[in-house]
């Protein structure tokens, strides 16, 4: 998708705190919402509530990390929700062999579907949105066929530890997420893959002529996205204590894309903001908490969400017009 790329006139000036904040509108929005809740939401400033914000944001953060990489290559991955469902459907099938093999299988399925996406995008040359849309439709169907459409209760101590366990008061799932964020951040900042994927997103033709292994990069990126979605599926399943392929990850593709874009990664590719993505997910979490805490209706919630999305994106797209 092309946005109207502004003529060079719109160069950002990165000077001063205000400039920084404008550049990173999402940080400002998160901060504002946080302060709002501190003041107006009862019981918000308690450790439990704050911890809850993190825990509940975990699945979206994890999925959005993968999505950010895909978007960096000027792609999109609509299949993440379906991959979560597939991961959830696989767990009970293999739980008989032990919890680790079951989780392993779930992650393998995620990678596998990711590779399939990669195949269609990189080798066949399909448009990412349509390739992954097909997987979105078919993948969840497959998950439901595997699970016979049913929710399966899971009673496994290791799984519930993943959902509810804590280390030094920090939930395991949050720790896992921190590790993942650092890893993906490292990939983006320091590795060949990170550099090459933004190059592919910035100008695919030029990258090809500069010897960037475009196909391999795309494969890797979609596989990573699939893997991360599967991890999110496992974590969410662990937290629910039940594999529920019908509902798990519904609309997660849209949440994740929103988190990524609100976080400052352009859909036109060529740039990836990892911390911004995390912030984007946190913003959505805070919006949800705020609205639920103040008992807003579904319709209000949608309207407010719309305004906040526009506000956050507008903030960091706001550019100085040279007068």
């Amino acid at each position: 998708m092309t946005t109207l790329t502004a003529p060079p006139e719109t160069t950002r000036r990165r000077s001063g705190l205000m400039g920084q904040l404008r550049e990173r509108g999402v940080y400002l929005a998160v901060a504002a919402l946080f302060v709002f809740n501190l003041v107006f939401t009862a019981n918000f400033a308690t450790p439990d509530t704050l911890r809850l914000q993190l825990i509940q944001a975990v699945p979206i953060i994890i999925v959005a990390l993968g999505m950010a990489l895909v978007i960096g290559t000027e792609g999109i991955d609509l299949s993440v929700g379906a991959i979560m469902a597939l991961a959830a459907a696989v767990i009970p099938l293999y739980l008989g062999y032990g919890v680790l093999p079951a989780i392993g299988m779930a992650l393998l399925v995620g990678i596998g579907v990711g590779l399939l996406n990669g195949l269609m995008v990189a080798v066949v040359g399909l448009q990412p949105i349509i390739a992954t849309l097909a997987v979105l439709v078919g993948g969840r169907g497959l998950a439901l066929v595997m699970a016979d459409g049913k929710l399966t209760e899971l009673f496994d101590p290791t799984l519930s530890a993943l959902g509810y366990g804590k280390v030094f008061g920090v939930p395991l799932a949050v720790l896992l997420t921190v590790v993942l964020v650092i890893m993906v951040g490292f990939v983006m900042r320091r590795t060949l893959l990170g550099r090459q994927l933004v190059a592919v997103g910035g100008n695919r033709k030029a990258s090809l002529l500069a010897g960037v292994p475009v196909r391999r990069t795309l494969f890797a990126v979609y596989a990573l996205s699939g893997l991360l979605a599967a991890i999110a599926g496992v974590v969410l399943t662990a937290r629910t204590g039940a594999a529920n392929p019908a509902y798990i990850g519904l609309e997660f593709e849209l949440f994740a894309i929103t988190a990524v874009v609100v976080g400052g990664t352009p859909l036109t590719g060529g740039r990836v903001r990892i911390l911004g993505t995390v912030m984007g997910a946190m913003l959505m979490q805070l919006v949800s908490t705020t609205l639920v805490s103040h008992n807003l209706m579904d319709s209000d919630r949608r309207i407010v969400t719309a305004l906040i999305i526009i506000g956050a994106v507008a903030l960091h797209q706001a550019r100085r017009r040279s007068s």
Partner: protein
Amino acid sequence: TQTAEAPPAPAPSDAGQQVQSTSGDDCTYENYGGTGVEKIDLATATIGFAQSEREANPFRSAETQSIKDEAEARGIKLIATNAQGDLNKEISDIQSMLAQGVDALIISPLKSEGLDPALDAAKEQGVPIFTIDRLLTSKDACVDYIGWVGSDFVEQGRRAAEAMNRVTGGEAKAITLLGAAGVNVTTDRNAGYREWIDANAPGIEIVAEQAGDFDRQKGQTVTEQLLAAHPDITAIYAHNDEMALGAVAALKAAGRSPGDVKIITIDGTQGAVQGIIDGWISGVIESNPRFGPLSFQALEDFYSGKGVPAVQIISDKEYTPENAEAELVNAY
């Protein structure tokens, strides 16, 4: 689907739907639509079934399964569609089944209104329709459809309120986990509940109503958020069992103990009835989805000339801590 060797396990005798009350004239193939329709032999007929919502909801999946099982048990050919919550698709689905030449239809309408084009088409082709679950309010029995069998969702809400009043002793700060927005079930279950509470239980304060979309995960997330905002709540009314189980998970995670917060829910799934046994849930109002036997019985009566009543309301049970253990086998 089941294999030929293993016929559907007969449900425990009182798990099937029981008719609580019937009313209306008896409808047969001879007087249907004023002029009557062609008599067919049910055994060789093709019946179409239009499901309204995604079967991800246990209620829906049990409903569809029950219809399929009954058709198979009777050796009747069945074609099934699912509108996935889209009224327009349900119209197309029904028309598509008509185009395939079904002899009669069983419809679970998505809405009480709005299926007119499909109903008209069926009438034109002389295909009778039996409706289940949701009543077509602006249509007439034995004119536009044979008859209807279903639960009264408003009544379910009232009974949930009654149960809530009983288990909390009439004093509670309660929250409600609503079903998906824009769905009749949600509206009715909430309307009945509020109506009863407003009239009879001044001590029960509803501090928040939030949508959990009939989903366990969503129910859990919302309950967690509401618990954080209102740590003092003492009761939860969930529009279905899945959300109630999500609420249980949230309570567990928040370190609450069973019975701290009273939960009343509707449906009657195994998990929820087990929840009563475990002490987390205080009561379940049953909503029986097993429409298969009654629906096909109605078609049989229709064609045999015995006649079908316009309205059959089924009696829904209530699971309580007293009967939960014994009734667990009947839950779906």
